[in-house]
């Protein structure tokens, strides 16, 4: 347990503050805000149109921001031999990767939730819509983090793994997008329940799928 805590502290520091060649939590956050900032320029300053479509844009931005850090979630540690050394010490990949999902979520999901009010302001969302977006992000981003770590583990060590990772993550994340954005439609509140269910399913499968991917990669 102490070993996992040490590993988690390292994961969180690396994912929040980054390192040369590893970025940090700032880049996905700026990307997320940039989409919300650019969208009104692209469609024009029609407040009604923005309010109707803005929440969906926030969800698309969140999904794409989740994909940005994929190539540094697993690959650098695999390359440097960390996973081999942990395996030698009997630390299960599943444990390491569960904590990595948590660290990844803390470093991108939570900042997105903090930035959502700013995005909502730029997109002219009202208070009720913002509230639904925040609840949706709280339920949906853990699922995005789980999918992200799984895909990162699957594509680590492959040439062009980063590009492939993005392509693989998008279809898996589509249910989260549909239920998340759908919850904002009139009468779509039950979308939040389906969003939570999809998120839980992703979280339940991810550590085992990612751990299996890393073990298979050793062969």
């Amino acid at each position: 347990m102490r070993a996992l805590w040490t590993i988690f502290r390292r994961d969180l520091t690396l994912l929040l503050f980054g390192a040369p060649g590893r970025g940090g939590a700032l880049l996905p956050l700026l990307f997320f805000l940039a989409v919300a900032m650019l969208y009104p320029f692209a469609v024009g300053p029609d407040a009604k149109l923005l309010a109707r479509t803005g929440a969906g844009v926030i969800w698309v931005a969140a999904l794409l921001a989740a994909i940005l850090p994929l190539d540094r979630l697993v690959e650098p540690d695999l390359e440097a031999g960390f996973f081999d050394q942990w395996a030698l010490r009997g630390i299960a990949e599943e444990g390491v990767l569960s904590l990595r999902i948590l660290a990844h979520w803390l470093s991108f999901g939570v900042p997105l939730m903090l930035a959502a009010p700013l995005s909502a302001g730029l997109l002219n969302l009202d208070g009720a819509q913002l509230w639904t977006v925040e609840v949706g992000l709280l339920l949906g981003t853990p699922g995005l983090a789980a999918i992200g770590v799984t895909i990162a583990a699957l594509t680590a060590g492959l040439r062009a793994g980063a590009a492939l990772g993005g392509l693989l993550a998008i279809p898996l994340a589509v249910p989260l997008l549909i239920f998340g954005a759908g919850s904002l439609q009139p009468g779509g509140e039950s979308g939040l329940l389906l969003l939570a269910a999809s998120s839980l399913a992703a979280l339940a499968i991810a550590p085992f799928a990612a751990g299996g991917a890393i073990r298979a990669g050793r062969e």
Partner: protein
Amino acid sequence: MQPCCLAAYDLACRRGDRLLFKGVGFELAGGEALHLAGPNGIGKSSLMRILAGLLRPYAGHVEHDGTLALADERPALDPHRPLGEALAFWRAIDRAGEARADFGLEDLLDVPVRFLSTGQRKRAALARLAASGARIWLLDEPLNGLDAHWGASTQAAIEAHRALGGIAVIASHQPLQLQKLRTLSLLEHLP
């Protein structure tokens, strides 16, 4: 110190559709050392990974009693972190107390790992292995990149580890000056 042992029985290794070696077997008790010899590409590193449990053998099996530590070409130290912190990360995981051999790294502890030379990085990986407190050392080309002085110091550290009842398996294409060293040439186990 607890007794330890490492034994391999009739190991074979296949990479892709090529059989690298077969019929590799040995038994090591505490204090013994084995030199895996053979030219590049014959499967020394694969055998190391099989012994470490990271690779499944195509045939045969490995038994060990006692903790394993592996030092290969990947040091598992964060490149951007100062060496002292990068080593402290593993010390916090292993919690085995102070290392007996320090490999002359005191002056480098605040240098980020990415600025270390090949030899210094090798010594850092060996220091991590020595500090792990593991009973069985698996060393993949430990002398690569080391000068004569540190090559000799590394072998002295291996001897000290054996004197305390530890086991060392060393894959190297260089000659080793170790006492009562057993040698296993993979050339004799070609399929």
